[in-house]
């Protein structure tokens, strides 16, 4: 197997040698993520494809000028900007959610993953509305995928997602109160 290099190593190699293969290899890793991201904003596969390609063309000669610490976060924000910009030009009325707190890691998630505070967690789980409790349990404890949960519990795909999301939020609120169940 070929030794796989980190993103940052590849980037350094590109900057040092100027060989575009390195940047191509690096960018290639992100094609599926970037394409999906652009799909979210542009909604059409051709537009998304062009956006991913256009971004590559724009970045390749200029990348040297940016100070990039973590390529992944950097390309994410650059690509998002790029697509927002395209979207603004072409279809000015699409709603965008503003999620500023996305980068934070969520302590409740880790609690659900790794356990800990079992009593409090169990107490709080009990207090969740039933669909939320089922969805959360299936996802975190039984480690089923969304699609698996759809089959098992019979909820719609969008419902599964929102049950998990809301369940997570409610758990967090409950756990912050100490999980004693006193409202």
């Amino acid at each position: 197997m070929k030794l796989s290099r980190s993103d940052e190593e590849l980037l350094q190699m590109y900057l040092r040698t100027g060989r575009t293969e390195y940047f191509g290899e690096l960018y290639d890793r992100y094609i599926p993520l970037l394409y999906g991201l652009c799909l979210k904003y542009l909604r059409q596969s051709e537009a998304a494809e062009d956006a991913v390609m256009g971004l590559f063309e724009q970045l390749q000669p200029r990348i040297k000028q940016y100070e990039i610490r973590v390529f992944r976060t950097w390309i994410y924000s650059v690509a998002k900007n790029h697509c927002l910009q395209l979207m603004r030009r072409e279809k000015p009325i699409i709603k965008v959610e503003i999620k500023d707190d996305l980068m934070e890691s969520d302590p409740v998630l880790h609690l659900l993953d790794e356990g800990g505070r079992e009593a409090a967690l169990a107490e709080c789980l009990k207090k969740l509305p039933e669909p939320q409790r089922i969805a959360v349990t299936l996802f975190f404890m039984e480690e089923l995928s969304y699609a698996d949960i759809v089959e098992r519990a019979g909820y719609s795909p969008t419902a599964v997602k929102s049950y998990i999301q809301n369940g997570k939020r409610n758990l967090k609120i409950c756990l912050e109160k100490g999980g004693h169940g006193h409202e």
Partner: protein
Amino acid sequence: MKLDSYIKGKRHGREARELERLAMEDPFLAESLEGYELARDDRHDAALDRLRGRIARRSRGRRRTWQMGVWSTAALVLLCIGLSAYLVLITKPVVPTDIAQAVESAAGGDSLSGHVEDSTLQPDGKIIAQQTEVKKTAIPPASKEITHKHDNTVTDEVIIDETPVAVIEEKKIVEAAADAEVVVTGYGTAKKTELTGVRADADKIAAKSDSQETILTARATDVKIRGRSEKTVQALRKQQTEGWMADESAVSSPAEGEVYLIADQMPAFRGGDVDKFRDWLTGKILYTATAGADTTSVRPVLSFIVEKDGSLSDVQATHSQDELLAETILRVVKTSPRWTPGRNKGLPVRVRIIMPVDFRQPE
């Protein structure tokens, strides 16, 4: 790759669940999955294969142009020096100053004709011709055009900073020609030929400086080097870093102390007040409403705290019917250069600024 099979529809089982779990803490992945979800019927894997092919073709065996520039310039200079030295050697007996002249004229380039005397004049014509060409590529007014474009624009200009200007500075030509003016602004890859041209000229001048001081001054004045682009670049770069710093410290600085709405001395932005900041902000956003949109409702109210160190925190945009606009404003505000903090009794304090942001609709 897990994402690939997920895209192809393998949504069941451990791997799919693992990806979904990752997405909960990874906004990049989350948004990407959302995208695939939203446009579900399309044949994404075909598109991805196509993209991979295109990227691979575009990056196969090509070298970066700036590197090519260095080598070809170096080769050209060497060739010229060699040729002129040869001409001098066969036409005249060797006298030390002649070698210097030979080098100087050689560095001037295009002395292939063998007219050593004339060729010292020729380069100037050439340089000046090139200079006008370069002028056309000066920073476009469109640089402030759109929301996030400022990122790109800044870097567009920085490219020059690192090529010709840097070379000129190294050889101390800038001082020699304080009143001169060559505009070495340019942008984008499309201009690489011009850039290489400028750099070659800079190298030529630089080579002259090594051989003969007096001629250098004369030449340099003819060639006219103006510091403008360099300053612009520096200013923009400074602005950029300050923007970043403000952004980071907004996250990490301990935001302690009361927040005032009014202070003895209100925070200042680039020596001006809130209006100055509004101009800066709206200058970075091109807002075009869709036909028939109710433009009166598009008047977001922006609110943020100017911290004691001049960074901004708690940035919010409200009252906007247009969420995209609100988000755009937030983005741009986060790249703001530092403010001068407000003061009460001489001590810096935190001040909340609340301001409506008006977008005049282009008719």
